[in-house]
């Protein structure tokens, strides 16, 4: 063992699964195939509200190769609806298709056609004749028949953070900003479609499906299908993009499992891109009313954030980003209120930075408006209102390096050269705009379990049912094990994405690195302890630096094993029980009693806007982030860079358009649902601001997967203002918005 393993944590190493990915050896959900498998194709509703009146199967059954058609007549009573994760369940919606003829949203599954080939199933699906009894459907906020309720009424656990008397302070403030903003509907559109492969053998079900929550899927499916969770295995070794869309179970999986059970053959579902818009979740549109009161020198005296979110008819899904926006700046008087609007839509769900992306757009735009009103530089305005103690309960941040991020970002960007006058910076026919904004994301850590086995040949296997959603989880887990065991990284085999492994939490809330690395470190430490105690090679008190070589020869042929569970700060023993039932007890953010945990960053955007045609192009994106200990700068940088690009996308490109009359999604393909192409992303720079946080968890890790894409939308809008003098408060910002204000 010539190589030293010291310092593997924090090292810029390539992904240990990289070669498998680029050579095609890594298998994603629909890459798996079984002998005798059948193919499913979904038929989805073309109305958003009503009932199935009649299904004529004649023409579909005539298609050669079609072997089954499953509708509510076959599935009702066999598959139970589940509860939302927020309500203690495992699903992203309580609407379970095929349990009745009722239609509650556009694109609801109304039938599944099974064929001997994908092509026969598809043709059968196209030939299935479904007649509906159509009822008027409401699409969004402005429809007459929607129902809006306060979040505090809809949910027992919801809190609207408040302190002091915001309204009086606002009325008395020398400077007042009173503005409204909105963000659009957005869909994750992971490149890997929402595929499922189900196989039964001896009463046991195996599911191959890309999942951010394999233990949650196992328990959720058991409930829905009425079987023992121990008879279910969910496999998800590689994931072709998730972004939250695979965190909660979707109704399709139990349906495909049930069909496979009835059929007695494996069933593989590959839905279409447009079906992905309605059979999974999405980011719902939001509206915001922000009021800021400040002294002439920029000190906030009042902050009020009222917001509205769309959800489905039956579910109270909400993101409630006021948890973050009421705690970003020091302010003695704060008011917030969240309401949800029930419309005839599928239930929204987690999408990368679910609360922070829309809510910080509003606050960070309003802060820029306050900067303009006070004549104070936007960075200085944030410095004036910076704090190390959150203003609602007076709890200390475990660490907060917001201004260090602004300073590092401003230096790299050249912010001091900015002429603050709107429209003053030009490049030929292009108006140049510079904008900035804060980003923040809660650091949550969850109970997790892991097993480590060390073999006599000096190789180790790490097992935990964690998930690599493209983030580099395989690699960072391997790095932690290598360092803590004292082995080269090449000797570590990481096994994740399998519900037969020790349970790990949902890959959500950016908790995986912190949750899983800490428990893997614990298991490794335990293993070394066992090893040296057994071998008597050293005193049990000081084994951390001991090389393994001396003791490997004494190991039994199948090695030795250690198992560990970890209860992070703020969790209770109950969290371990929940972990073994597929529930993740995420603790952190603003939910703790004694402290507050967030990662911070500062983002800078340079735009060019054509003086005549107003198309908006981004020439530079810089983000400076302080997120505790960076386990792998390469994968971390990649995530933050991707986040910045998605932030740009959320500002200028992405919007799911809804046909108002029918409450149906219109642009449900990647030609019309825009994301940036390479030519839209010119220069992206990620800066790590060093930050040591020993309190937050043993390894000092903060999550960063969802930090990068927050605030970018506001920085873009602020840059649009700087370039043109026009404030666009509704996303996405399009050229017609600038043409309209000018004419």
């Amino acid at each position, binding site marked *: 063992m010539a190589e030293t393993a010291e310092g593997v944590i924090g090292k810029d190493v390539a992904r240990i699964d990289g070669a498998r990915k680029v050579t095609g050896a890594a298998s994603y959900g629909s890459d798996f195939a079984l002998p005798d498998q059948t193919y499913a194709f979904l038929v989805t509703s073309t109305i958003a509200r009503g009932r199935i009146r009649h299904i004529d199967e004649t023409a579909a059954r005539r298609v050669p190769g079609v072997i089954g058609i499953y509708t509510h007549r076959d599935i009702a009573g066999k598959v139970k609806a589940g509860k939302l994760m927020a309500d203690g369940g495992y699903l992203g919606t309580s609407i379970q298709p095929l349990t009745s003829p009722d239609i509650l949203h556009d694109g609801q599954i109304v039938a599944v056609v099974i064929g001997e080939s994908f092509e026969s199933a598809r043709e059968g699906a196209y030939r299935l004749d479904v007649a509906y009894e159509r009822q008027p459907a409401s699409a969004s906020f402005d429809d007459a028949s929607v129902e809006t309720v306060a979040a505090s009424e809809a949910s027992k656990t919801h809190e609207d953070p408040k302190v002091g008397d915001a309204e009086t302070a606002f009325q008395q403030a020398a400077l007042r900003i009173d503005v409204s903003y909105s963000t659009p509907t957005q869909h994750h559109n992971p490149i890997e479609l929402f595929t499922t492969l189900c196989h039964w053998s001896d009463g046991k079900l195996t599911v191959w499906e890309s999942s951010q929550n394999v233990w949650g899927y196992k328990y959720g499916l058991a409930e829905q299908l009425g079987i023992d969770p121990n008879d279910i295995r969910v496999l998800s070794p590689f994931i072709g993009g998730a972004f939250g869309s695979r965190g909660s179970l979707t109704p399709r999986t139990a349906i495909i499992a049930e069909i496979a059970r009835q059929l007695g053959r494996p069933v593989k579902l590959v839905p279409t891109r447009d079906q992905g818009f309605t059979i999974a979740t999405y980011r719902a549109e939001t509206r915001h009313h922000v009021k800021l009161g400040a002294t002439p020198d920029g000190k906030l005296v009042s902050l009020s954030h009222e917001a509205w979110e769309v959800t489905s008819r039956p579910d109270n899904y909400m993101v409630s980003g006021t948890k973050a926006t009421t705690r970003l700046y020091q302010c003695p008087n704060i008011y917030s209120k969240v309401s949800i609007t029930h419309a005839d839509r599928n239930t929204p769900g987690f999408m990368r930075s679910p609360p922070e992306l829309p809510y910080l757009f509003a606050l960070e735009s309003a802060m820029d408006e306050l900067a303009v009103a006070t004549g104070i530089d936007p960075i200085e305005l944030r410095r004036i209102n910076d704090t190390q103690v959150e203003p609602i309960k007076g709890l200390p941040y475990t660490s907060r390096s917001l201004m260090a991020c602004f300073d590092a970002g401003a230096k790299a960007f050249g912010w001091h050269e900015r002429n603050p006058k709107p429209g003053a910076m030009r490049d030929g026919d292009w108006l140049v705009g510079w904008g900035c904004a804060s980003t923040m994301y809660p650091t949550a850590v969850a109970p997790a379990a892991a097993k480590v086995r060390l073999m006599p040949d000096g190789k180790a296997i790490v097992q935990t049912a964690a998930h690599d959603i493209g983030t580099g989880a395989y690699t960072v887990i391997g790095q932690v094990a290598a360092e803590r065991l004292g082995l080269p990284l090449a000797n570590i085999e990481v096994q994740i994405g399998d519900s037969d492994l020790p349970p790990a939490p949902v890959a959500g809330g950016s908790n995986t690195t912190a949750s899983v690395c800490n428990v893997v470190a614990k298991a490794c430490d335990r293993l070394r302890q066992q090893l040296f105690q057994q071998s008597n090679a050293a005193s049990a008190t000081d084994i951390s630096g001991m090389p393994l070589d001396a003791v490997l020869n004494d190991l039994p042929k199948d090695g030795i094993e250690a198992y560990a569970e970890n209860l992070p700060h703020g969790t209770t023993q109950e969290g371990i029980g929940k972990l073994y039932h597929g529930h993740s007890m995420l603790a952190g953010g603003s939910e703790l009693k004694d402290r507050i945990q967030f990662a911070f960053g500062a983002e800078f955007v340079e735009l060019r806007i054509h003086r005549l*045609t*107003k198309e908006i192009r981004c020439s530079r994106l810089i983000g400076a982030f302080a997120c505790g200990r960076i386990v792998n700068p390469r994968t971390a940088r990649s995530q933050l860079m991707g986040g910045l690009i998605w932030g740009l996308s959320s500002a200028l490109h992405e919007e799911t358009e809804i*046909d*108002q009359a029918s409450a*149906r999604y*219109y642009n449900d393909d990647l030609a019309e649902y825009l994301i940036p192409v390479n*030519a839209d992303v010119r220069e992206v720079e990620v800066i790590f601001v060093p930050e040591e946080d020993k309190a937050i968890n043993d390894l000092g890790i903060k999550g960063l997967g969802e930090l990068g894409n927050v605030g970018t939308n506001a920085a873009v809008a602020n840059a649009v203002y700087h370039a043109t003098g026009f404030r666009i408060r509704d996303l996405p910002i399009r050229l017609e918005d600038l043409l309209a204000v000018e004419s």
Partner: protein
Amino acid sequence: MYPFGYQRIDTPQALKAAQQRQRGEADKAVSYLAGGTTLLDLMKLGTLAPAEILDINGLAHDYGDISWADDELRLGALVRMSAAADHPRIRSDFPVIAQSLDLAASPQIRNMASLGGNVLQRTRCNYFRQTGWTACNKRQPGSGCAAMEGVNRKHAILGVSDHCIAAYPGDFGQALVALEARVDILGFHGTRTLPFHQLHLAPGSEPERETVLLPGELITGFHVPIGPWTRRSLYLKIRDRESYEFALVSAAVAMHLDDNVIRDVRIALGGVATKPWRAHEAEQQLIGRRPDLPAFEAASKVAFAAAVTRPGNRYKVDLGQQTLTRALLQLAEMEV
């Protein structure tokens, strides 16, 4: 996708035989396949369901050349978009053609798609493309038009009717219409040649009829006249992102500038019309005038005088005018 018959056509004789067969089966939907970049998409969606596909890629020997005469450029219908866009002489002598092709689609699609197929590309109106929408006069004559009161940000404002506002999606077609190209069409009775601007039909009361092509007729090539305006030509495409997107507005423009006077000018507009759109009145405004901003702005206003808008696409009048003004300013400054 539905099952279909497939036949490879490798010789003009085989094509003639296939066309003869089609005359006998007038009701049978037959599609020619070249690059397949539109056809395959729409067949997968179930929007198009031809009973038979005639793969004409084997005719490249006959219809796949770029050639030159003294007075014109000839483009075979089976020339791939990328081949025309990369051709050095097209780039120097017909910048508007090269640019209209370069700015379309993605490199992969441009390597596949043929010029003949390109001009026949179907609209991107999703009410047409997705069969789940019931009201589409183009797909289902008489069923209505969901776009009228629906999502219509990208729809047309010129050449529209009460039956259809779907925009023509192509780019190359605008270049051809601006340059007064002619198109060769091979049918059972032989070849006919039409001015390109006569190929496409505005929707009127029959939006399902998009071109004058008769069943079995095949576009075999294009003739583009060389004129004193062809070198001073360009294509300006305005869209929400930098690449791989259809135009919100585009302008194909060419100008003969002599002694700082506009002797001749050609203007075609894309993204805003139901077919490749020639702005004759705007051209008339400019002939004989000096190439300056007031002239260009006045002409741009005229070009959109007949616009009929919906709430979602009202901005296209303003954007269209700005786009055309910008294109003309750039054109006047071009070094030729």
